[in-house]
């Protein structure tokens, strides 16, 4: 346990500088975006009022007020989120491959630590999950701040309220920021399983070389197949299963897939890994 915590700390420290940079980029881009989009809209409104010689009440009668949604749908807001997601996806692979490649082969040291080798796997998995949760927390903190800035720039008569609950209900955000605890566990539980499958697939490749690539692909396809089987089953036999039954099936398949990912990774790290 002590080694696991130390390794998690070590993994986090290795990515921390870059992580802070992408966090700073997100903050700067979104806050700048909030200011630019809000001011841009206000400039447009003022121009329309000026050019048409309207009063504020006349303008409001003829035009619909706008909400914070305009900021949310702007590239200033979405681009850093997609950038962070893309970077973390790359990092899921890089977190392993950097140990073998490059100037120094740190994998020697990791595999010679006096701790169960699966600890390395768990520490990397935990680090990825913490990075994801950290970025989500940042976003949760940022949205009220950005709403506050938006409200300061856009006078009340020109805007409608955009409750946070609406923000979290919009398509992609619903995936990123689930509304309920159950949704949260489902979304991030599935995220964890996907990362675990990728990690185990990487270890298959690292253990068996070229043959490992084929087995990694086969293993991944099989795992994802098992994982989505309940959903496919429920779409074929519509109205045959209760939602709670589908959820239970999903839970069982998730446990099977996650358990087998851990078991295979443990066997590979103990007996098959090559440096």
């Amino acid at each position, binding site marked *: 346990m002590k080694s696991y915590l130390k390794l998690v700390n070590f993994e986090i420290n290795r990515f921390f500088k870059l992580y802070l940079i992408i966090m700073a980029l997100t903050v700067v881009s979104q806050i700048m975006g909030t200011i630019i989009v809000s001011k841009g809209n206000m400039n447009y409104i003022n121009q329309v009022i000026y050019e048409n010689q309207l009063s504020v009440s006349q303008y409001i009668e003829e035009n619909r007020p706008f909400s914070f949604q305009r900021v949310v749908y702007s590239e200033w807001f979405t681009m850093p989120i997609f950038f962070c997601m893309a970077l973390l996806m790359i990092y899921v692979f890089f977190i392993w491959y950097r140990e073998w490649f490059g100037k120094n082969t740190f994998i*020697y040291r990791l595999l010679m630590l*006096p701790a169960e080798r699966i600890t390395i796997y768990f520490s990397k998995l935990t680090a990825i999950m913490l990075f994801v949760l950290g970025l989500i927390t940042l976003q949760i903190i940022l949205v009220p701040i950005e709403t506050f800035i938006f409200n300061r720039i856009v006078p009340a008569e020109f805007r409608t309220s955009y409750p946070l609950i609406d923000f979290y209900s919009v398509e992609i955000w619903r995936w990123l920021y689930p509304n309920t605890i159950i949704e949260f566990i489902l979304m991030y539980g599935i995220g964890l399983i996907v990362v675990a499958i990728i990690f185990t697939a990487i270890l298959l490749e690292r253990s068996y070389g070229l043959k490992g690539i084929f087995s990694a692909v086969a293993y991944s396809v099989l795992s994802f197949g098992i994982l989505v089987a309940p959903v496919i089953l429920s779409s074929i036999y519509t109205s045959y299963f209760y939602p709670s039954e589908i959820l239970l099936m999903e839970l069982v398949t998730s446990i099977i897939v996650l358990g087998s990912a851990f078991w295979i990774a443990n066997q590979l790290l103990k007996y098959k890994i090559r440096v």
Partner: protein
Amino acid sequence: MIEVNNIQKKYGKKQILNGLSFTAKKGEITCLIGVNGVGKTTIMKAIMALTPIDSGEILIDGQKIRHDSFEKITFIPDTTTMLPTMKICDAFEFMADFYKSWNSQRAEDLLRFFKLESTNRIGNLSKGSLAKVNMILGLALDVEYVLMDEPFSGIDIFSREQIAEVFTSHLIEGRGVILTTHEISDVEHLIDRAVLIDDGKVIKQFSVEDIRENEGKSVVDVMREVYR
């Protein structure tokens, strides 16, 4: 004692190790000798469970290697095992964090002996200095067995002398050492046992002192007989 019993290993279709067996005792320096590509590094890696073997058995004091064996045995490969971004002192801290057997005092002593600065960044070190850092990371562990892969390969004469000095010091005394080399002249005067390897097998193993006293031969003489 480290026992390597009848191990086999293939890389693709090429048989690298073909029923190779030898033992290395505590308190002795055993040298694996063979030309490049004969499988010396593979043997080291196999002992440390860093590469799987196809068959055979490797025992350390009668037991298969487990995670806690790494407090008992260490491997000094000919590549750097710490991150280039780390300073030497960071590497020491890492070792102290994870290994109960890490001896900080000895690490500091070795650092002074090798005339290295703890604030030096590993990525900026020369090959010779890297070899010394590797040596410190292995020797500052209070372990019973030390494996060294080509400790003299590609480093300057002064660094070689310093490393050779370590072999004759108390730092090695009492430990079981296995080292590999393809240039025996560097280590002949340091080793107790020689294991000659060819075609994935041990073709001869002997006590260096015995062969010197009884037959008046050096390791190089025996190698000439065996390999020619």
